[in-house]
């Protein structure tokens, strides 16, 4: 029945036949995805984004799987390598609007060097990193963002490392936009992504997400609603916070907001300037 095919307002952006997603019940990735699609939908309907030029690229991980449900040009490539893949695509066809989506392991651990250099170049792309504090797809190993002391399957005595603050890292580079939202604030994900879509240069959004299945299990919050409400309690919104304020600490709080907003020429603009 045609009615059943496209019912949800976001269905036209989805490969609906592939639904339901592989994500666990209550997984935050889907919340982030739907917020991003609402923003994209707005951009498309106001005419500022051509859907045929949108390219979604992801690496490997639960977060990376999200692009496979999108009714756009999508690429699910190697673990950690979504950013360079997207760089090649955009350089070959600068009309493409590339969005890279990945987990914090994908983007900031194995892909960390690419992240640094893409931000340093102010490369023309939006990167959305889903921080769920764990390596979820592989079964709950320690991630760069795992809080200190937390049990994971590869840190059975507790994580001996302090987590990486990726906002501070990217903010210290030449990125035009650096923001953090949470799946407990979907309207902010939508707002930030909407803004990022129309900006130039490197745009980075960290989305703090719930993973009841892996991280939740490790910290005793296996229930979706409990995990969600515990994250919600920890999230603090600030208006235009500084990078120093960009705390992400499971015990002390997680500051969300727009940390950096610049309007520097992008890599491709600079490349074109140099060409003359």
């Amino acid at each position, binding site marked *: 029945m045609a*009615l059943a095919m496209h*019912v*949800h307002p976001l*269905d036209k952006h989805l490969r609906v036949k592939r639904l*339901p997603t592989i*994500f666990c019940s209550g997984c935050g990735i889907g*919340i982030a995805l739907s917020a991003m699609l*609402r923003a994209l939908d707005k951009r498309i309907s106001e005419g500022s984004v051509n859907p045929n030029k949108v390219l979604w690229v992801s690496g490997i991980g639960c977060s990376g799987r999200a692009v496979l449900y999108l009714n756009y040009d999508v690429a699910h490539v190697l673990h950690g390598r979504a950013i360079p893949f997207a760089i090649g695509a955009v350089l070959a066809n600068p009309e493409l609007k590339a969005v890279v989506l990945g987990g914090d392991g994908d983007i900031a651990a194995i892909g960390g060097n690419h992240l640094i250099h893409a931000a340093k170049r102010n490369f023309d792309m939006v990167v959305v990193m889903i921080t769920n504090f764990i390596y979820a797809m592989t079964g709950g190993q320690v991630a760069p963002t795992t809080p200190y002391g937390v049990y994971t399957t590869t840190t059975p005595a507790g994580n001996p490392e302090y987590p990486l603050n990726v906002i501070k890292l990217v903010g210290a580079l030449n990125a035009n936009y650096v923001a953090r939202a949470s799946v407990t604030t979907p309207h902010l994900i*939508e707002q930030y992504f909407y803004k990022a879509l129309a900006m130039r240069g490197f745009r980075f959004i960290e989305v703090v997400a719930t993973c009841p299945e892996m991280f939740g299990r490790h910290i005793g919050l296996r229930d979706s609603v409990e995990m*969600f409400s515990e994250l919600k309690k920890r999230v603090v919104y600030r208006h235009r916070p500084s990078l120093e304020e960009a705390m992400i600490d499971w015990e002390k709080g997680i500051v969300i907001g727009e940390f950096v907003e610049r309007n520097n020429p992008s890599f491709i603009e600079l490349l074109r300037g140099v060409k003359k």
Partner: protein
Amino acid sequence: MFSVGGVVSRSNNKFRVNVIVDRCKECGLCIFICPTKVLVRSGVMNRYGYYPPDPVFIDKCVGCKLCEYVCPDFAIFIEKV
């Protein structure tokens, strides 16, 4: 209440709450987030074995769309009637 093509809908005089039954994974986030407590877990299982929400107290729906925004599975949405 009516059900078409796997969508269960209930409306008050302003808003309609629609649940795409077979997309729901019963996480309960919509029920939790709803400020006026419109939604209740239904007693009817979907094809994957989950119990989707049922907008039983539809009269209280204020159309805030928080359930639509929090649903990770594109399974619930609100329309103006």
